[in-house]
C-alpha cells in the first residue's frame, strides 16, 4: 500500500489538471462573472499610498463614478496594462483610483516612479484583507463603480487596448447615460 501512495498522489494531480483543462474550455478566464456585479461595492477604509496617515473610505468616493484598478509592483501583467491606462486615463470620463495590492509601499512608489502614475488617487492594501471583500483573484483587476457605489463592470487581467475599446469604454458610456 505504501508503495502505491506516490501513484495515488499523482493521480489526484492528474485529476486536478484535467479539471483545469476542462475549466479553461468552459470559462473565459478574463470574464469570470463576479457575484458582486451590479451589487454595492464592499465598504472599505484604506490608507493613501503617498500619505499613509490619511484614510479613504467608500463613502468618501461616493457621488462620482470611478474605476478601481488593482495593481502591484510584483505583478508582471500590470506592466503590460500600465501604458494603456496611462494613455487612456485622462479620456476615460471617470476617476482612476489605483488600488495597490499586497505590496510594500516603497516598491509600489518605485514602480510608479518608473512606469508613471496615471492615477487620480492611490490607496494601499498591504495586507490584502479588503481585497478579499472585493473578491480579487489576483492583480491586475479592475472594477467600475458608479456614483452610488455599485459595481457596474469588472475585468480580470490586464486592460489591453482591445478590452478598453470593446468592453470598458462601452460600459462607462452605458453607466454615464443612466446616472451621469
Amino acid at each position: 500500500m505504501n508503495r502505491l501512495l506516490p501513484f495515488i498522489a499523482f493521480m489526484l494531480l492528474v485529476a486536478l489538471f484535467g479539471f483545469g483543462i476542462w475549466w479553461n474550455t468552459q470559462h473565459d478566464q478574463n470574464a469570470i462573472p463576479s457575484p458582486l456585479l451590479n451589487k454595492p461595492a464592499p465598504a472599505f477604509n484604506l490608507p493613501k499610498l503617498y500619505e499613509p496617515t490619511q484614510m479613504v473610505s467608500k463613502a468618501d468616493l461616493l457621488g462620482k463614478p470611478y474605476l478601481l484598478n488593482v495593481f502591484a509592483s510584483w505583478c508582471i501583467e500590470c506592466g503590460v496594462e500600465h501604458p494603456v491606462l496611462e494613455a487612456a486615463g485622462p479620456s476615460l470620463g471617470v476617476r482612476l483610483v489605483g488600488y495597490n495590492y499586497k505590496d510594500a509601499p516603497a516598491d509600489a512608489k518605485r514602480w510608479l516612479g518608473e512606469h508613471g502614475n496615471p492615477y487620480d488617487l492611490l490607496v494601499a492594501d498591504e495586507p490584502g484583507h479588503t481585497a478579499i471583500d472585493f473578491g480579487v483573484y489576483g492583480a491586475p483587476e479592475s472594477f467600475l463603480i458608479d456614483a452610488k457605489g455599485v459595481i457596474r463592470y469588472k475585468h480580470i487581467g490586464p486592460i489591453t487596448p482591445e478590452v478598453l475599446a470593446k468592453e470598458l469604454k462601452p460600459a462607462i458610456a452605458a453607466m454615464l447615460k443612466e446616472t451621469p
Partner: protein
Amino acid sequence: MTPELGQLALILALLLALAQGVLPLIGAWRGNRALMAVARPAAAGQAVFVAMAFAILVWAFLHFDFSVQYVADNSNLELPWYYRIAAVWGAHEGSLLLWILILNVWTVALAAFSQKLPEVFASRVLAVMGLIAVGFLAFIIFTSNPFGRLLPMPGDGADLNPVLQDPGMTFHPPVLYTGYVGFSVAFAFAIAGLLGGELEQAWVRWARPWTNVAWAFLTLGIVAGSWWAYAELGWGGWWFWDPVENASFMPWLVGLGLIHAQAITEKRGSLRAWTILLSIFAFSLSLLGTFLVRSGVLTSVHAFASDPRRGVFILAFLTIVVGGSLLLYALRAPKVAGGKAFKLVSRETVLLIGNLMFAVAAAMVLLGTLFPLIGDALNLGRISVGPPYFGFLFPLLMLPVVLLMPFGPFLRWGKGEPDVLKSLLLRVSIAAAACAIVAAFFVDGQPKAIVGVAAATWIAIGVLLYVYKRWREVPRGRRYPAEMAGMLLAHMGLAVFVVGVLLSESLSVTSDVRMAPGQTQHIGSYDFRFDGAHRTTGPNWRADQGTVTVTRDRKPVTVMHPQKRTYLRGQVQTESAVDAGIFRDLYVALGEPMDAGNIEGAWSLRLYYKPFIRWIWGGGLLMMLGGFTCAADKRFRIKRAAAIADDVLVQEARA
C-alpha cells in the same frame, strides 16, 4: 517542398522511435538478441531524421520562407540572422522540436557510452528513451506541426518577441532543455532497473554521471535565465517565482536530491526505493513543467500556447509516463530495505535530511505554482500566492540544509563520531560569529547582510576545513578525486550564492530620479551624471539612448548607454545598461522623457547600485562546475559490466 520533407522526416523519426521503444523491450523479455540489437541503429536513425527536420526549419528561417506559418509568425525581413536562428525555438512548435532534438542527442550519447553495459539492461534503457521520444514526436506531429503552410504567402512576417531578442535568451532554452531532458536518462535507468529487477547498486553507479551532467546543464540554464531576467526586464530583480521559472526550479531541486540519494545508494546500497522514486520524480517534474507552460492551465500568468487539444495530449502523455512508472514502482520497487544500516549520527542521516528538505521544497513550490488552479477546483476563486509565500517558506526550508552542510563530509558512512562534530561545530561557529561581527561594521547593521555573511562563512569554513583535513590525512594523488572535488566546488558555490542573495538584497541602493542633462546624482559612493539622450537605430529597432557618465571621487568609472527600444511592430523594450563588477553592479534603466515631445530634455531614470549581485550567478556557476567535475570521476567509467557486478556482489558479501 522542403518544409514537407521536414514533416516527412518527423514521421519517419516517429516510426523509428516506435521500433526503438518496443522491439528491444520484447527482445529483453524474450532473450532475443536480434530484437535487442534494434535499439542502437533505430536510435541513430531517429536522431538523423530529427536533426534533418530541425535543419530544415532553421533553413526556412534563414531564407525567409514565410509560406511556413511558424516562420511568418516569428521572424521578419529585418531580423538579424542570429536571432532568426534563435527564433526557431522562440515559440511553442519550434521549441518542442528543439526538445526532441536534444532528447535524441542524449539518446545517441547513451547508445554510444552504454556499449559495455549488459546487453539486456542497455536495450531496456534505450527502449525507455525511445518510448519518451514516441510521445513527443506524436505530440509535435499531431498537435503542433512547425511546418504548417500559410497561404497566400505574406510578403513579410511578424516579429520575434522582442523580449527574446537578447544574446542570453538565444542560448538559455537549449541549455535549459538539455538539463530537463537529461533527467530522462536517470529515469530510463530507473525504469529499466525496475523492469529487470537488476541490482540497484550497479545501475545507480552507471546513472550517476548522467544525472550530474543533466543537473549541471539545468543549473546553467537557470542561471542564464535569471541573468537574462536581470539584464533584460529592467527591474533589477533576478528571480520572480513565476510559474515558468518554478517549472525549471522544481526538477532542479529534486535533481539535487537525486544526486545525493544516488551517492548513498551507490556507496551503501541503502535508500534504494527513494532513489528510484526521485529518478521518476525528477523527470516527471520536467514533463510537468512542459505541461504547465504549454497547456494553458495557468493561462492567467504566462502562456506558450493555450490550445486545449495540446493540453489534453500532454496530460494524457504525462499520465501514461508518470502514472505508468509510479505503478511499476508500486509493483516492483525493492520490498526489503537493503544496504547497510546506519546510526543516527552518520553521513546518511545528514544527506537524508537534506534530501527531505529538497523534496519538501519542491512540493512547496509545486503547491504555490498550482494554487490558482486548486482555488478554481475548490471553488474558492483564483487565489494567487506570490513572492511573499515563496520568499518566506523557501529560506525556512533551506535553513537546515545550510546548517548541516559542513558536517556531511566530516561524518563517516554508517556511524559518525560525535567528537568530530563537536570540534567542527566549535570552529565553524567561532568563524561565522567572528565574520558576522566584523561584517556588522561594514553593512550598517543590516540584519540580512550579517546573516548572509555568517551563513556563507559557516559553509565556506566547513568546506575549507574538509579540504585541509584531506590534505593532511590522505597521501598525494588520492586527496581529491573528481567526485569529491565536484562536491566541494558545488558546496562552495552555495556559500558564494548565499553572499550574493543576502548582501545584494539588503545593501542595494535604488533611486528613481528625474534628471536634466548635466545633472548629477549620488548613489553609494558613485556619482551618476546624465549627459542627455539621443535617437539611434539598430537592425530592426529605433531607440532613445541615454548617456550616463559615472565617476567615483572625481575619477571616471564608466560611461553607460541605457536604451528604450521600439521594435518594428511597435513593441517597446527597455535595454538597461549594466556596468558589471565583482563587488558591485551599476545598473541604469531609462524611464520616460519628462516632456514626451522633447527627448533632448529631462528624463526619468532608474539608478541602481547592487553590491555582490554577481555572486548569485557566480555561485550558480560553481555549482554547475561541481556537477560536471563530479561526473568526470574515473570511478564512473564503465569498466566491464561483469566486473562491476562482481564488484558490487563482493561489497554486498562483505557487508
